[in-house]
Protein backbone atom coordinates (compact mmCIF):
# COMPACT_ATOMS: atom_id res chain seq x y z
CA UNK A 1 0.00 0.00 0.00
CA UNK A 2 2.80 2.35 0.89
CA UNK A 3 4.33 1.60 -2.47
CA UNK A 4 1.14 2.40 -4.33
CA UNK A 5 0.78 5.69 -2.48
CA UNK A 6 4.38 6.65 -3.16
CA UNK A 7 3.93 5.77 -6.83
CA UNK A 8 0.76 7.82 -6.96
CA UNK A 9 2.44 10.86 -5.46
CA UNK A 10 5.41 10.80 -7.79
CA UNK A 11 2.88 10.10 -10.56
CA UNK A 12 1.10 13.34 -9.82
CA UNK A 13 4.20 15.45 -10.30
CA UNK A 14 5.09 13.43 -13.38
CA UNK A 15 1.57 14.12 -14.63
CA UNK A 16 2.30 17.83 -14.41
CA UNK A 17 5.34 17.34 -16.57
CA UNK A 18 3.39 15.18 -19.02
CA UNK A 19 0.74 17.88 -19.22
CA UNK A 20 3.51 20.42 -19.85
CA UNK A 21 4.78 18.34 -22.75
CA UNK A 22 1.41 17.69 -24.33
CA UNK A 23 0.22 21.26 -23.94
CA UNK A 24 2.83 22.08 -26.57
CA UNK A 25 2.88 18.81 -28.48
CA UNK A 26 -0.85 18.45 -29.09
CA UNK A 27 -1.50 21.84 -30.70
CA UNK A 28 1.85 22.50 -32.37
CA UNK A 29 3.38 19.03 -32.95
CA UNK A 30 6.67 20.37 -31.61
CA UNK A 31 8.53 17.60 -29.83
CA UNK A 32 9.49 19.84 -26.97
CA UNK A 33 12.65 18.31 -25.48
CA UNK A 34 13.85 21.78 -24.46
CA UNK A 35 11.42 21.33 -21.59
CA UNK A 36 14.15 19.21 -20.00
CA UNK A 37 16.40 22.26 -20.01
CA UNK A 38 13.77 24.32 -18.22
CA UNK A 39 13.18 21.45 -15.82
CA UNK A 40 16.90 21.48 -15.04
CA UNK A 41 17.31 25.21 -14.70
CA UNK A 42 14.28 26.17 -12.58
CA UNK A 43 15.37 24.58 -9.25
CA UNK A 44 18.76 26.27 -9.63
CA UNK A 45 17.03 29.62 -9.92
CA UNK A 46 14.97 28.90 -6.81
CA UNK A 47 18.08 27.72 -5.01
CA UNK A 48 20.02 30.84 -5.97
CA UNK A 49 17.15 32.99 -4.69
CA UNK A 50 17.08 31.12 -1.40
CA UNK A 51 20.84 31.49 -1.07
CA UNK A 52 20.37 35.23 -1.35
CA UNK A 53 17.85 35.09 1.49
CA UNK A 54 14.84 35.82 -0.65
CA UNK A 55 11.72 34.44 1.11
CA UNK A 56 10.37 31.11 -0.08
CA UNK A 57 7.16 32.28 -1.82
CA UNK A 58 9.07 34.94 -3.73
CA UNK A 59 11.76 32.43 -4.72
CA UNK A 60 9.14 30.02 -5.99
CA UNK A 61 7.45 32.81 -7.89
CA UNK A 62 10.71 33.97 -9.46
CA UNK A 63 11.61 30.40 -10.43
CA UNK A 64 8.24 29.67 -12.06
CA UNK A 65 8.30 33.03 -13.82
CA UNK A 66 11.78 32.28 -15.05
CA UNK A 67 10.68 28.87 -16.39
CA UNK A 68 7.70 30.44 -18.12
CA UNK A 69 9.78 33.16 -19.71
CA UNK A 70 12.38 30.65 -20.85
CA UNK A 71 9.66 28.61 -22.49
CA UNK A 72 8.26 31.71 -24.21
CA UNK A 73 11.79 32.46 -25.35
CA UNK A 74 12.04 28.97 -26.85
CA UNK A 75 8.98 29.70 -28.95
CA UNK A 76 9.94 33.23 -29.91
CA UNK A 77 13.53 32.57 -30.82
CA UNK A 78 13.56 28.91 -31.80
CA UNK A 79 10.33 27.14 -32.66
CA UNK A 80 8.43 30.16 -33.94
CA UNK A 81 11.04 31.16 -36.52
CA UNK A 82 11.52 27.50 -37.51
CA UNK A 83 7.79 27.17 -38.02
CA UNK A 84 7.74 30.26 -40.21
CA UNK A 85 10.44 28.70 -42.34
CA UNK A 86 8.32 25.59 -42.69
CA UNK A 87 10.89 23.39 -40.96
CA UNK A 88 10.19 19.69 -40.57
CA UNK A 89 9.23 18.09 -37.28
CA UNK A 90 12.69 16.52 -37.17
CA UNK A 91 14.29 19.96 -37.31
CA UNK A 92 12.09 21.12 -34.43
CA UNK A 93 13.08 18.10 -32.39
CA UNK A 94 16.78 18.46 -33.06
CA UNK A 95 16.88 22.18 -32.33
CA UNK A 96 14.84 21.58 -29.20
CA UNK A 97 17.44 19.01 -28.18
CA UNK A 98 20.05 21.69 -28.81
CA UNK A 99 18.20 24.09 -26.50
CA UNK A 100 18.09 21.43 -23.81
CA UNK A 101 21.83 20.81 -24.05
CA UNK A 102 22.46 24.55 -23.99
CA UNK A 103 20.31 25.21 -20.91
CA UNK A 104 21.48 22.25 -18.87
CA UNK A 105 25.13 22.95 -19.60
CA UNK A 106 24.63 26.60 -18.66
CA UNK A 107 23.23 25.42 -15.35
CA UNK A 108 26.22 23.14 -14.88
CA UNK A 109 28.72 25.86 -15.70
CA UNK A 110 27.13 28.44 -13.40
CA UNK A 111 26.19 26.23 -10.48
CA UNK A 112 28.34 23.12 -10.82
CA UNK A 113 27.64 19.49 -11.52
CA UNK A 114 26.96 18.29 -7.99
CA UNK A 115 23.57 17.48 -6.49
CA UNK A 116 21.88 20.19 -4.44
CA UNK A 117 18.85 20.31 -2.13
CA UNK A 118 16.19 22.98 -1.76
CA UNK A 119 15.01 21.76 1.60
CA UNK A 120 16.95 22.57 4.75
CA UNK A 121 16.95 20.03 7.53
CA UNK A 122 15.24 16.69 7.79
CA UNK A 123 11.78 16.14 6.40
CA UNK A 124 9.03 15.77 8.98
CA UNK A 125 7.01 12.60 8.71
CA UNK A 126 3.36 12.00 9.51
CA UNK A 127 1.37 8.79 9.47
CA UNK A 128 -2.13 8.46 8.02
CA UNK A 129 -3.79 5.11 8.85
CA UNK A 130 -0.58 3.18 8.50
CA UNK A 131 0.79 5.09 5.48
CA UNK A 132 3.85 7.20 6.04
CA UNK A 133 3.97 10.53 4.23
CA UNK A 134 6.77 13.05 4.39
CA UNK A 135 5.99 16.72 4.46
CA UNK A 136 7.36 17.25 0.97
CA UNK A 137 5.11 14.47 -0.29
CA UNK A 138 2.12 16.17 1.26
CA UNK A 139 3.03 19.48 -0.35
CA UNK A 140 3.54 17.67 -3.64
CA UNK A 141 0.08 16.09 -3.52
CA UNK A 142 -1.70 19.30 -2.61
CA UNK A 143 0.07 21.43 -5.21
CA UNK A 144 -0.18 18.89 -8.06
CA UNK A 145 -3.85 18.25 -7.47
CA UNK A 146 -4.53 21.96 -7.37
CA UNK A 147 -2.59 22.70 -10.53
CA UNK A 148 -4.09 19.75 -12.39
CA UNK A 149 -7.59 20.81 -11.38
CA UNK A 150 -6.88 24.31 -12.58
CA UNK A 151 -5.55 22.91 -15.86
CA UNK A 152 -8.65 20.82 -16.34
CA UNK A 153 -11.06 23.64 -15.49
CA UNK A 154 -9.34 26.13 -17.77
CA UNK A 155 -9.17 23.68 -20.63
CA UNK A 156 -12.79 22.57 -20.53
CA UNK A 157 -14.59 25.44 -18.89
CA UNK A 158 -13.19 28.67 -20.28
CA UNK A 159 -13.12 30.47 -23.60
CA UNK A 160 -9.33 30.33 -23.64
CA UNK A 161 -9.57 26.57 -23.16
CA UNK A 162 -11.99 26.22 -26.07
CA UNK A 163 -9.65 28.21 -28.28
CA UNK A 164 -6.85 26.05 -27.16
CA UNK A 165 -8.63 22.85 -28.06
CA UNK A 166 -9.71 24.36 -31.36
CA UNK A 167 -6.12 25.20 -32.22
CA UNK A 168 -5.05 21.68 -31.34
CA UNK A 169 -7.84 20.23 -33.46
CA UNK A 170 -7.32 22.14 -36.68
CA UNK A 171 -4.79 24.96 -36.67
CA UNK A 172 -5.52 26.14 -40.21
CA UNK A 173 -9.23 26.44 -39.55
CA UNK A 174 -8.42 28.21 -36.28
CA UNK A 175 -6.45 30.82 -38.19
CA UNK A 176 -9.15 31.22 -40.82
CA UNK A 177 -11.69 31.98 -38.12
CA UNK A 178 -9.64 35.02 -37.21
CA UNK A 179 -7.52 33.88 -34.29
CA UNK A 180 -3.93 34.90 -33.88
CA UNK A 181 -1.94 31.71 -34.04
CA UNK A 182 1.36 33.25 -32.94
CA UNK A 183 -0.18 34.54 -29.72
CA UNK A 184 -1.84 31.20 -29.00
CA UNK A 185 1.40 29.36 -29.63
CA UNK A 186 3.22 31.61 -27.20
CA UNK A 187 0.43 31.02 -24.68
CA UNK A 188 0.80 27.28 -24.99
CA UNK A 189 4.56 27.46 -24.54
CA UNK A 190 4.06 29.71 -21.51
CA UNK A 191 1.60 27.27 -19.97
CA UNK A 192 4.01 24.45 -20.66
CA UNK A 193 6.89 26.32 -19.03
CA UNK A 194 4.83 27.07 -15.93
CA UNK A 195 3.58 23.49 -15.54
CA UNK A 196 7.10 22.16 -16.02
CA UNK A 197 8.53 24.59 -13.46
CA UNK A 198 6.01 23.57 -10.82
CA UNK A 199 6.71 19.90 -11.41
CA UNK A 200 10.45 20.46 -11.30
CA UNK A 201 10.29 22.42 -8.04
CA UNK A 202 8.14 19.77 -6.38
CA UNK A 203 10.54 16.99 -7.29
CA UNK A 204 13.58 19.09 -6.40
CA UNK A 205 12.10 19.87 -3.02
CA UNK A 206 11.49 16.22 -2.35
CA UNK A 207 14.65 14.51 -3.58
CA UNK A 208 17.11 17.23 -4.59
CA UNK A 209 18.36 18.13 -8.06
CA UNK A 210 21.41 18.36 -10.29
CA UNK A 211 22.24 19.59 -13.77
CA UNK A 212 21.74 16.25 -15.50
CA UNK A 213 18.41 14.82 -14.37
CA UNK A 214 16.17 16.89 -16.62
CA UNK A 215 16.21 14.73 -19.70
CA UNK A 216 15.48 11.55 -17.76
CA UNK A 217 12.46 13.18 -16.13
CA UNK A 218 11.12 14.56 -19.39
CA UNK A 219 11.66 11.27 -21.19
CA UNK A 220 9.68 9.57 -18.46
CA UNK A 221 6.92 12.12 -18.92
CA UNK A 222 6.99 11.52 -22.67
CA UNK A 223 6.56 7.81 -22.04
CA UNK A 224 3.53 8.74 -19.95
CA UNK A 225 2.23 10.88 -22.81
CA UNK A 226 2.61 8.02 -25.27
CA UNK A 227 0.87 5.59 -22.93
CA UNK A 228 -2.00 7.99 -22.37
CA UNK A 229 -2.39 9.04 -25.97
CA UNK A 230 -0.45 11.78 -27.60
CA UNK A 231 -3.38 13.46 -29.25
CA UNK A 232 -5.35 14.24 -26.13
CA UNK A 233 -4.86 16.69 -23.30
CA UNK A 234 -6.14 14.48 -20.50
CA UNK A 235 -4.76 11.08 -21.54
CA UNK A 236 -1.15 11.98 -20.69
CA UNK A 237 -2.07 12.81 -17.10
CA UNK A 238 -3.59 9.40 -16.56
CA UNK A 239 -0.77 7.82 -18.55
CA UNK A 240 1.87 9.43 -16.36
CA UNK A 241 0.15 8.31 -13.16
CA UNK A 242 -0.18 4.76 -14.49
CA UNK A 243 3.46 4.75 -15.47
CA UNK A 244 4.52 5.83 -12.00
CA UNK A 245 2.42 3.11 -10.43
CA UNK A 246 3.91 0.52 -12.76
CA UNK A 247 7.41 1.69 -11.92
CA UNK A 248 6.68 1.54 -8.21
CA UNK A 249 5.48 -2.03 -8.66
CA UNK A 250 8.56 -3.00 -10.67
CA UNK A 251 10.86 -1.55 -8.04
CA UNK A 252 8.97 -3.44 -5.38
CA UNK A 253 8.78 -6.80 -7.17
CA UNK A 254 12.14 -6.82 -8.97
CA UNK A 255 14.66 -4.13 -8.19
CA UNK A 256 15.27 -0.47 -8.85
CA UNK A 257 17.94 -1.13 -11.44
CA UNK A 258 15.47 -2.65 -13.89
CA UNK A 259 12.93 0.17 -13.61
CA UNK A 260 14.32 2.07 -16.60
CA UNK A 261 14.43 -0.98 -18.83
CA UNK A 262 10.89 -1.86 -17.86
CA UNK A 263 9.65 1.69 -18.49
CA UNK A 264 11.03 1.71 -21.98
CA UNK A 265 9.81 -1.81 -22.66
CA UNK A 266 6.34 -0.49 -21.87
CA UNK A 267 6.98 2.41 -24.25
CA UNK A 268 8.04 0.03 -27.03
CA UNK A 269 5.04 -2.20 -26.44
CA UNK A 270 2.58 0.71 -26.55
CA UNK A 271 4.17 2.15 -29.69
CA UNK A 272 3.96 -1.18 -31.46
CA UNK A 273 0.58 -2.37 -30.31
CA UNK A 274 -1.42 0.82 -29.88
CA UNK A 275 0.51 3.77 -31.27
CA UNK A 276 -2.41 6.12 -30.63
CA UNK A 277 -2.15 5.44 -26.88
CA UNK A 278 -3.94 3.14 -24.48
CA UNK A 279 -6.56 5.62 -23.37
CA UNK A 280 -7.43 7.43 -26.54
CA UNK A 281 -10.25 6.36 -28.79
CA UNK A 282 -10.32 6.54 -32.54
CA UNK A 283 -12.38 9.47 -33.71
CA UNK A 284 -15.26 8.42 -35.89
CA UNK A 285 -14.86 10.38 -39.05
CA UNK A 286 -16.25 9.82 -42.44
CA UNK A 287 -13.69 7.87 -44.34
CA UNK A 288 -12.01 9.90 -47.02
CA UNK A 289 -13.03 8.01 -50.10
Amino acid at each position, binding site marked *: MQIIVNGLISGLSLALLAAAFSVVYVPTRVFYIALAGIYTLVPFVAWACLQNLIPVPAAVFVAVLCGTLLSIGCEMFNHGPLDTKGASSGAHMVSSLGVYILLSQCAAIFWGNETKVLRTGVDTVSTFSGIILTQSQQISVVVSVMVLTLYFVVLHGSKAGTRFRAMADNATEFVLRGHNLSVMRIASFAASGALCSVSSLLVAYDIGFDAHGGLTAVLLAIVGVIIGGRKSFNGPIIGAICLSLIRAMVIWVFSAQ*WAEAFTFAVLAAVLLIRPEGMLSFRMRLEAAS
Partner: protein
Amino acid sequence: MNYALHLMIFMSIYGIVAASLNIVSGYCGLLTMAQASYFAVGCYTYALATTKSGMDFIPASLLGMVIAGLMSLAISVPAWRLRGDSFVLISLAVQQMLFSLFQNWTSPNSEPGTWSNLTNGTFGLTNIPKPSFFGMQLTDIESTAALAFGALIVCMLLSRVLLRSPWSRVLQSMRDDELVTRGMGKNVRLAKIQAIAISCAMAAFGGALYASYVNYVDPTIASLDESMAVLCMVLVGGTGNFRGPIVGAIVLLAIPELLRFCAMPDTIASNLRLLIYGLILILMMHFRPQGLAGSYRIS
Protein backbone atom coordinates in the same frame (compact mmCIF):
# COMPACT_ATOMS: atom_id res chain seq x y z
CA MET B 1 53.09 13.54 -32.21
CA ASN B 2 51.34 10.92 -30.10
CA TYR B 3 48.68 13.50 -29.45
CA ALA B 4 48.04 13.95 -33.19
CA LEU B 5 47.90 10.18 -33.67
CA HIS B 6 45.51 9.84 -30.76
CA LEU B 7 43.29 12.47 -32.34
CA MET B 8 43.48 10.72 -35.68
CA ILE B 9 42.42 7.41 -34.15
CA PHE B 10 39.42 9.02 -32.49
CA MET B 11 38.44 10.84 -35.65
CA SER B 12 38.64 7.61 -37.60
CA ILE B 13 36.54 5.70 -35.09
CA TYR B 14 33.90 8.39 -34.85
CA GLY B 15 34.02 8.90 -38.60
CA ILE B 16 33.09 5.24 -39.02
CA VAL B 17 30.26 5.49 -36.49
CA ALA B 18 28.94 8.71 -38.03
CA ALA B 19 29.09 7.18 -41.50
CA SER B 20 27.11 4.21 -40.19
CA LEU B 21 24.47 6.46 -38.70
CA ASN B 22 24.22 8.32 -42.00
CA ILE B 23 22.94 5.17 -43.70
CA VAL B 24 19.93 5.14 -41.39
CA SER B 25 19.39 8.86 -40.85
CA GLY B 26 20.41 10.17 -44.22
CA TYR B 27 19.27 7.47 -46.59
CA CYS B 28 16.30 5.99 -44.75
CA GLY B 29 15.27 9.27 -43.14
CA LEU B 30 15.02 7.71 -39.68
CA LEU B 31 16.66 9.48 -36.74
CA THR B 32 17.96 6.84 -34.37
CA MET B 33 19.10 7.34 -30.79
CA ALA B 34 20.37 3.78 -30.45
CA GLN B 35 23.58 3.99 -32.48
CA ALA B 36 25.83 4.21 -29.42
CA SER B 37 24.25 1.03 -28.06
CA TYR B 38 25.30 -0.90 -31.12
CA PHE B 39 28.72 0.71 -30.89
CA ALA B 40 28.83 -0.63 -27.33
CA VAL B 41 27.69 -4.06 -28.51
CA GLY B 42 30.79 -4.08 -30.71
CA CYS B 43 32.98 -2.96 -27.81
CA TYR B 44 31.69 -5.57 -25.37
CA THR B 45 31.75 -8.39 -27.88
CA TYR B 46 35.33 -7.56 -28.83
CA ALA B 47 36.32 -7.32 -25.18
CA LEU B 48 34.75 -10.65 -24.24
CA ALA B 49 35.88 -12.48 -27.36
CA THR B 50 39.48 -11.41 -26.97
CA THR B 51 39.82 -11.78 -23.22
CA LYS B 52 37.80 -14.96 -22.79
CA SER B 53 38.53 -16.95 -25.92
CA GLY B 54 41.66 -15.21 -27.17
CA MET B 55 40.32 -14.33 -30.60
CA ASP B 56 42.20 -12.18 -33.09
CA PHE B 57 41.02 -8.74 -34.07
CA ILE B 58 39.27 -9.81 -37.25
CA PRO B 59 37.13 -12.68 -35.93
CA ALA B 60 36.34 -10.78 -32.74
CA SER B 61 35.16 -7.68 -34.58
CA LEU B 62 33.27 -9.81 -37.12
CA LEU B 63 31.50 -11.52 -34.25
CA GLY B 64 30.56 -8.12 -32.85
CA MET B 65 29.26 -7.04 -36.24
CA VAL B 66 27.13 -10.17 -36.61
CA ILE B 67 25.66 -9.80 -33.12
CA ALA B 68 24.95 -6.10 -33.66
CA GLY B 69 23.41 -6.91 -37.06
CA LEU B 70 21.09 -9.43 -35.47
CA MET B 71 20.22 -7.11 -32.61
CA SER B 72 19.41 -4.37 -35.11
CA LEU B 73 16.14 -6.21 -35.76
CA ALA B 74 14.97 -4.59 -32.53
CA ILE B 75 14.79 -1.26 -34.32
CA SER B 76 14.31 -2.32 -37.93
CA VAL B 77 11.16 -4.37 -37.40
CA PRO B 78 9.40 -1.50 -35.58
CA ALA B 79 10.57 0.75 -38.42
CA TRP B 80 8.21 -1.13 -40.72
CA ARG B 81 5.35 0.72 -39.12
CA LEU B 82 6.81 3.66 -37.26
CA ARG B 83 8.53 6.75 -38.55
CA GLY B 84 9.21 10.29 -37.40
CA ASP B 85 8.76 10.91 -33.70
CA SER B 86 7.58 7.39 -33.04
CA PHE B 87 10.71 5.88 -34.52
CA VAL B 88 12.91 8.21 -32.48
CA LEU B 89 11.08 7.02 -29.38
CA ILE B 90 11.39 3.35 -30.21
CA SER B 91 15.12 3.74 -30.87
CA LEU B 92 15.35 5.55 -27.56
CA ALA B 93 13.58 2.66 -25.88
CA VAL B 94 16.05 0.19 -27.41
CA GLN B 95 18.95 2.40 -26.34
CA GLN B 96 17.69 2.56 -22.75
CA MET B 97 17.07 -1.17 -22.59
CA LEU B 98 20.51 -2.06 -23.94
CA PHE B 99 22.07 0.46 -21.57
CA SER B 100 20.28 -1.17 -18.63
CA LEU B 101 21.49 -4.52 -19.86
CA PHE B 102 25.13 -3.40 -19.96
CA GLN B 103 24.79 -1.81 -16.58
CA ASN B 104 22.90 -4.58 -14.81
CA TRP B 105 24.18 -7.85 -16.28
CA THR B 106 26.39 -8.30 -13.30
CA SER B 107 26.60 -10.18 -10.08
CA PRO B 108 29.15 -9.49 -7.39
CA ASN B 109 29.86 -13.16 -6.76
CA SER B 110 31.32 -14.18 -10.09
CA GLU B 111 34.25 -13.24 -12.28
CA PRO B 112 33.76 -10.52 -14.92
CA GLY B 113 33.01 -12.07 -18.29
CA THR B 114 31.22 -15.14 -17.03
CA TRP B 115 27.57 -15.73 -17.93
CA SER B 116 26.18 -14.36 -14.68
CA ASN B 117 28.50 -11.35 -14.70
CA LEU B 118 28.89 -10.69 -18.40
CA THR B 119 29.48 -6.94 -18.38
CA ASN B 120 30.73 -6.37 -14.84
CA GLY B 121 28.18 -3.57 -14.45
CA THR B 122 29.34 -0.01 -13.98
CA PHE B 123 32.91 -1.12 -13.37
CA GLY B 124 33.24 -2.27 -16.94
CA LEU B 125 35.70 -4.68 -18.50
CA THR B 126 39.40 -3.96 -18.31
CA ASN B 127 42.63 -5.31 -19.80
CA ILE B 128 41.29 -5.66 -23.33
CA PRO B 129 44.20 -6.63 -25.55
CA LYS B 130 45.53 -4.44 -28.34
CA PRO B 131 44.48 -5.51 -31.83
CA SER B 132 46.27 -8.60 -33.01
CA PHE B 133 46.38 -10.20 -36.43
CA PHE B 134 47.26 -13.88 -36.70
CA GLY B 135 49.08 -13.70 -33.39
CA MET B 136 50.88 -10.45 -34.20
CA GLN B 137 49.94 -7.69 -31.80
CA LEU B 138 49.96 -3.99 -32.68
CA THR B 139 51.29 -2.46 -29.52
CA ASP B 140 52.53 0.96 -30.62
CA ILE B 141 50.26 3.88 -31.32
CA GLU B 142 51.54 4.40 -34.87
CA SER B 143 50.33 1.03 -36.08
CA THR B 144 47.03 1.41 -34.24
CA ALA B 145 46.56 4.76 -35.94
CA ALA B 146 47.36 3.16 -39.28
CA LEU B 147 44.83 0.41 -38.56
CA ALA B 148 42.14 2.91 -37.57
CA PHE B 149 42.75 5.13 -40.53
CA GLY B 150 42.84 2.14 -42.86
CA ALA B 151 39.58 0.93 -41.39
CA LEU B 152 38.05 4.35 -41.96
CA ILE B 153 39.17 4.32 -45.61
CA VAL B 154 37.77 0.83 -46.13
CA CYS B 155 34.46 1.79 -44.51
CA MET B 156 34.28 4.92 -46.62
CA LEU B 157 34.91 2.98 -49.80
CA LEU B 158 32.36 0.36 -48.91
CA SER B 159 29.73 2.91 -48.04
CA ARG B 160 30.55 4.80 -51.21
CA VAL B 161 29.92 1.71 -53.31
CA LEU B 162 26.74 0.94 -51.42
CA LEU B 163 25.42 4.45 -51.48
CA ARG B 164 25.87 4.75 -55.22
CA SER B 165 24.23 1.44 -55.99
CA PRO B 166 20.61 0.83 -57.00
CA TRP B 167 20.07 -0.28 -53.39
CA SER B 168 20.59 3.24 -52.10
CA ARG B 169 18.29 4.51 -54.83
CA VAL B 170 15.58 2.29 -53.41
CA LEU B 171 16.35 3.61 -49.91
CA GLN B 172 16.10 7.21 -51.05
CA SER B 173 12.91 6.53 -52.90
CA MET B 174 11.51 4.87 -49.79
CA ARG B 175 12.54 7.87 -47.71
CA ASP B 176 10.75 10.23 -50.11
CA ASP B 177 7.55 8.25 -50.50
CA GLU B 178 7.15 4.81 -49.04
CA LEU B 179 3.80 4.03 -50.61
CA VAL B 180 4.96 4.90 -54.12
CA THR B 181 8.06 2.77 -53.64
CA ARG B 182 5.98 -0.18 -52.55
CA GLY B 183 3.76 0.43 -55.54
CA MET B 184 6.80 -0.11 -57.75
CA GLY B 185 7.20 -3.59 -56.32
CA LYS B 186 10.09 -2.84 -53.98
CA ASN B 187 10.34 -4.76 -50.76
CA VAL B 188 10.76 -1.81 -48.43
CA ARG B 189 10.65 -3.91 -45.29
CA LEU B 190 13.61 -5.94 -46.43
CA ALA B 191 15.41 -2.76 -47.46
CA LYS B 192 14.91 -1.29 -43.99
CA ILE B 193 16.22 -4.43 -42.32
CA GLN B 194 19.24 -4.46 -44.62
CA ALA B 195 20.05 -0.79 -44.17
CA ILE B 196 19.73 -0.82 -40.40
CA ALA B 197 21.65 -4.08 -40.05
CA ILE B 198 24.51 -2.79 -42.19
CA SER B 199 24.56 0.46 -40.26
CA CYS B 200 24.59 -1.26 -36.86
CA ALA B 201 27.27 -3.72 -37.94
CA MET B 202 29.43 -0.82 -39.07
CA ALA B 203 28.92 0.94 -35.73
CA ALA B 204 29.88 -2.28 -33.96
CA PHE B 205 33.07 -2.42 -36.00
CA GLY B 206 33.85 1.10 -34.80
CA GLY B 207 33.19 -0.17 -31.30
CA ALA B 208 35.68 -3.02 -31.70
CA LEU B 209 38.33 -0.56 -32.83
CA TYR B 210 37.55 1.66 -29.86
CA ALA B 211 37.75 -1.18 -27.35
CA SER B 212 41.04 -2.37 -28.77
CA TYR B 213 42.49 1.12 -28.58
CA VAL B 214 41.41 2.25 -25.09
CA ASN B 215 41.59 -1.27 -23.59
CA TYR B 216 38.61 -0.62 -21.37
CA VAL B 217 34.82 -0.50 -21.75
CA ASP B 218 32.09 0.58 -19.37
CA PRO B 219 28.35 1.27 -19.86
CA THR B 220 28.81 5.03 -20.38
CA ILE B 221 29.79 4.41 -24.00
CA ALA B 222 26.22 3.17 -24.55
CA SER B 223 24.65 6.19 -22.89
CA LEU B 224 22.19 8.57 -24.47
CA ASP B 225 24.78 11.37 -24.42
CA GLU B 226 27.03 9.27 -26.62
CA SER B 227 24.21 8.60 -29.08
CA MET B 228 23.41 12.27 -29.21
CA ALA B 229 27.04 13.14 -29.82
CA VAL B 230 27.12 10.84 -32.85
CA LEU B 231 23.80 12.24 -34.03
CA CYS B 232 25.27 15.73 -33.71
CA MET B 233 28.18 14.73 -35.92
CA VAL B 234 25.88 13.49 -38.64
CA LEU B 235 23.53 16.45 -38.39
CA VAL B 236 26.36 18.97 -38.35
CA GLY B 237 28.24 17.31 -41.16
CA GLY B 238 25.15 16.67 -43.17
CA THR B 239 23.12 13.67 -44.15
CA GLY B 240 22.33 12.07 -47.46
CA ASN B 241 25.80 11.80 -48.96
CA PHE B 242 28.88 9.97 -47.84
CA ARG B 243 31.28 12.81 -47.03
CA GLY B 244 28.98 14.73 -44.65
CA PRO B 245 29.42 12.53 -41.55
CA ILE B 246 33.21 12.60 -41.82
CA VAL B 247 33.16 16.39 -41.92
CA GLY B 248 30.87 16.33 -38.88
CA ALA B 249 33.10 13.95 -36.94
CA ILE B 250 36.17 16.08 -37.61
CA VAL B 251 34.45 19.35 -36.70
CA LEU B 252 32.92 18.07 -33.49
CA LEU B 253 36.09 16.33 -32.32
CA ALA B 254 38.15 19.39 -33.14
CA ILE B 255 36.08 21.63 -30.85
CA PRO B 256 37.21 20.12 -27.51
CA GLU B 257 40.79 20.15 -28.70
CA LEU B 258 40.51 23.84 -29.51
CA LEU B 259 39.08 24.42 -26.04
CA ARG B 260 42.08 22.65 -24.60
CA PHE B 261 44.34 25.14 -26.33
CA CYS B 262 42.36 27.96 -24.72
CA ALA B 263 43.58 26.60 -21.36
CA MET B 264 40.08 26.01 -20.11
CA PRO B 265 39.84 24.17 -16.77
CA ASP B 266 38.79 20.58 -17.37
CA THR B 267 35.54 20.71 -15.40
CA ILE B 268 34.18 23.61 -17.38
CA ALA B 269 35.64 22.41 -20.67
CA SER B 270 33.46 19.31 -20.79
CA ASN B 271 30.33 21.35 -20.05
CA LEU B 272 31.37 24.01 -22.52
CA ARG B 273 31.96 21.39 -25.19
CA LEU B 274 28.40 20.11 -24.83
CA LEU B 275 27.11 23.66 -24.71
CA ILE B 276 28.76 24.35 -28.02
CA TYR B 277 27.26 21.15 -29.47
CA GLY B 278 23.83 22.37 -28.42
CA LEU B 279 24.40 25.77 -29.90
CA ILE B 280 25.62 24.27 -33.16
CA LEU B 281 22.52 22.06 -33.38
CA ILE B 282 20.21 25.05 -32.95
CA LEU B 283 22.06 27.23 -35.44
CA MET B 284 22.26 24.35 -37.90
CA MET B 285 18.52 23.76 -37.85
CA HIS B 286 17.91 27.46 -38.45
CA PHE B 287 20.43 28.29 -41.08
CA ARG B 288 21.60 25.09 -42.72
CA PRO B 289 19.20 22.22 -42.08
CA GLN B 290 21.01 19.96 -44.54
CA GLY B 291 24.26 20.19 -42.54
CA LEU B 292 27.65 21.53 -43.59
CA ALA B 293 28.21 19.13 -46.46
CA GLY B 294 24.94 17.27 -46.72
CA SER B 295 22.34 17.00 -49.40
CA TYR B 296 19.22 15.93 -47.56
CA ARG B 297 17.15 17.76 -44.96
CA ILE B 298 15.96 15.57 -42.15
CA SER B 299 12.21 15.29 -41.98
